[in-house]
């Protein structure tokens, strides 16, 4: 069951992701600089990291330490200025925009700090969104989303618009959206930052459970101790550099 979703033959490069001895995600000597007008800002400096399939890993660090940059690079939303980022056999730096879009569509699920649900769509339609982009027929989309809503404890909210949902419910819908297309990797950027502590803990337990049961690799960014405390592996960043990488037996 572990990693099954990642190997679904959904894209032309699917067969290249099957070497079980390789880390799923590799960042090697990555540099990332941004230009704001004449100012050049370094977000990552000589950053290297390997993530195995099925890990539940947190990137911890203060604001501006480079956590979101790592997520953006792994998610194919951005390219490194130098160094290499590979996910399976996909080399992010050299992939075309179309390949990266397809990679995001079929391989990665995103969870954002502010949920980022589409306000004009219902909760179920939001969750179905990536399946709709993939061209999955409506009955099949609805079936998968209904199952996920039950699993995430938000059944009955399918026809509500995001504006009619609480923060915790919205984030559960966002998790359903991230998982609907059965991706191998879920990237979550500060997913509990806008939630009260009780809801945050509930959601973290839920994602930990999904990680165990589905074998989905979870990569979080957070400076929230509740998140950090639940991770098996914590990678600490400061000023774009890795300052710690610890694993516990949780």
């Amino acid at each position, binding site marked *: 069951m572990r990693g099954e979703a990642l190997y679904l033959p959904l894209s032309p490069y699917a067969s290249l992701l099957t070497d079980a001895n390789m880390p799923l995600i590799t960042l090697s000597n990555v540099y990332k600089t941004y230009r704001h007008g004449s100012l050049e800002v370094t977000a990552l400096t000589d950053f290297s990291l390997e993530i195995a399939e099925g890990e539940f890993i947190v990137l911890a660090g203060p604001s501006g330490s480079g956590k979101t940059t790592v997520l*953006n690079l792994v998610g194919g939303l951005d390219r490194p200025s130098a160094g290499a980022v590979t996910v399976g056999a996909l080399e992010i730096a050299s992939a075309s925009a179309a390949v990266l879009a397809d990679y995001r569509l079929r391989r990665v699920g995103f969870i954002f700090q502010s949920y980022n649900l589409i306000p004009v769509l219902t909760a179920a339609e939001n969750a179905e969104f990536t399946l*709709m*982009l993939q061209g999955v027929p409506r009955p099949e989309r609805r079936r998968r989303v209904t199952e996920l809503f039950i699993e995430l404890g938000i059944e009955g909210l399918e026809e509500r618009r995001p504006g009619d949902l609480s923060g915790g419910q919205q984030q559960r819908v966002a998790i359903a*959206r991230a998982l609907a297309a059965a991706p191998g990797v879920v990237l979550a950027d500060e997913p509990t930052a806008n939630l009260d502590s009780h809801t945050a803990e509930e959601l973290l337990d839920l994602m930990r459970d999904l990680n165990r049961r589905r074998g989905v690799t979870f990569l979080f960014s957070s400076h929230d101790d509740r998140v950090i405390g639940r991770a098996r592996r914590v990678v600490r960043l400061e000023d774009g550099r890795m300052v710690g990488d610890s694993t516990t037996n949780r």
Partner: protein
Amino acid sequence: MNAFLYAWRSLWRNRRRTLITLTAIALSIMLVQAFHNLAVGAYARMIDDGVRAGSGHLAVYRHGYLESREENLGFSPANLAAQIRAIPGVTKVLPRVYLPALAQSSHDSRGILLIGVEPEAELTVNPFLKGLSADAMLRDIDGRDAVIGKRLLDDLKLAVGRKLVVTAQHRDGTLHSELLRVRGVVSTGMPDIDGSLLMVGRQRAALLTGMQDDIHELAIILNDSDEEAFVAAAITPLLHDRPELAAVSWEKAMPNLANAIKLDYASQKFIFVIILLIVTIGVVNTLLMSVMERLREFGVVLALGSSPGRLRRLVLIEALLLGMVAAVAGCVLGALATWYLVDIGIDLKRFIPETLEFGGVVFDPVLRAAWDLAWMAKIALYVVGLTLLAALYPAIKAGRITPVEAMRHH
């Protein structure tokens, strides 16, 4: 949920802005359709009056007559008139003789245009003769009755029942005169015609020049101007053994009227283009604002795996839906406006004289529209196309968004 549903709901995020844009597009369609239909109605009326008093929807002439108006370029209608009359769609066939002549009374003389007609056929068709009572109309085609323009009557200091002499050049080169008696007076509203028109029986006019039964024009009046091409095609074989003759349309026979209509409609088209251009700019503004307000959402959609092409399509679908709804609303409003203009019309009597001339025809101050459904549909489709065109820039803009930058946008 599909792209159309997403686009439709997105369209109504800012309900007020979308409604304002829809109203602007719909009103512009209504204006353009109603004014086009009004112009079509007014032109149809002018053409109808013009062809009845003038050359007919179609006319048969001898080659060269239209250009030179030489009175010796006549032809014998023989059985041609009867053959044409038998073509479906033909209402009347009117043989006419036109002669430049001199009219003299005991007081004065004037250069005139003598028109020889068949009174019975003309009476029901010719708008110049519309107001004439039976005792003011020409009685036969070879009698000495004359119907005279009001201004010419005054210039010659004549009255109904009084005599005048008309002199024209005979084919043999000599001058011939005929004595006529005023039986009716017409007032067309056009000073040139009222000052030079003298209508007599066709054979009486022919006597002056020795044309016998020859005529200059065989004017053909149709039930419906749309049948012009069909009737013209039916006439062509009838003229095979008369190669000296040609059938021409009213546009060629009455170029003044045709050109006046063309010029007037060209200026209307220019206004239509400006109206649609303004609307297009409004649509660009609406869609661009809609795109700029949703940068963050578009960034998320791209992050979730949508291609830039899909985003472009989404904006284009929104424009398509906007255009289609506006087109339907505009057509309903345009139909209601046209309905009113067909039924009631616009009375311009307060603003223009009742005898205003337009392209050689008296302009009816009460404008009434005519339905042009095909054109109404065409303009609605144009507007949908323009809306799509207006969406190109916002769509390209949406396609250029990069997800990381867009998601930083608040």
